[in-house]
């Protein structure tokens, strides 16, 4: 089974449309993320949720709205798509590390969703 799965893998849509990308993790992790990778291959964190609660929002436009129905799912909804939204969107998850835990966090990524806005 895929640890972090996201759908769709490819999405081509017109400007102005609204679209969603779904993500599910079966690792039992508490924290999930959305990253955006642009054409220059920079990976930028967009959002992070811990146990369904938003903990990181990296100045992403309001058109992007994450939704976490439970800690195993984090979906990304994008309103009024623009050309600049074309990118690869990666979902990821990790386990929260408690202060007494001597290990660091490891992030597990999905395979990515290629969004093309035309």
């Amino acid at each position, binding site marked *: 089974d895929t640890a972090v799965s996201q759908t769709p893998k490819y999405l081509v849509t017109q400007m102005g449309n609204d679209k969603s990308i779904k993500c599910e993790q079966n690792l039992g992790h508490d924290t999930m993320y959305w990253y955006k990778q642009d054409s220059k291959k920079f*990976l930028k964190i967009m959002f*992070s949720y811990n146990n369904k609660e938003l*903990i*990181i929002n990296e100045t992403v436009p309001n058109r992007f709205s994450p939704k976490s129905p439970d800690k195993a799912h984090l979906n990304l909804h994008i309103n009024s798509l623009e050309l600049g939204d074309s990118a690869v969107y990666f979902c990821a998850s*990790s386990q*929260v590390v408690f202060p007494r835990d001597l290990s*660091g*966090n490891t992030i597990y*990524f999905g*395979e990515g969703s290629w969004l093309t806005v035309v």
Partner: protein
Amino acid sequence: LAKTTQPISMDSYEGQEVNITCSHNNIATNDYITWYQQFPSQGPRFIIQGYKTKVTNEVASLFIPADRKSSTLSLPRVSLSDTAVYYCLVGGRSNFNKFYFGSGTKLNVKP
């Protein structure tokens, strides 16, 4: 937040050992150093993680000096399939799961 600096690209030949160094001058006390590998059209994949000194696993070694302001990923005897982008990250407990990726190092392994 600790910023990382890596070479943009490196070339190597099959069978050689490759060392990729990452600078992270303002690493926090609780930060770990993690390296990821990304192939085209795939998500980044965990390679190795360490806090100090040396860590070795089945695919790589990670060398971290005492001041922890840099780290070196060592890939023994690379093959063509090791051609990928390698990212160095610092973070973890000190910033509650905020992980920032740098620009990465594009490793090109030639036959």
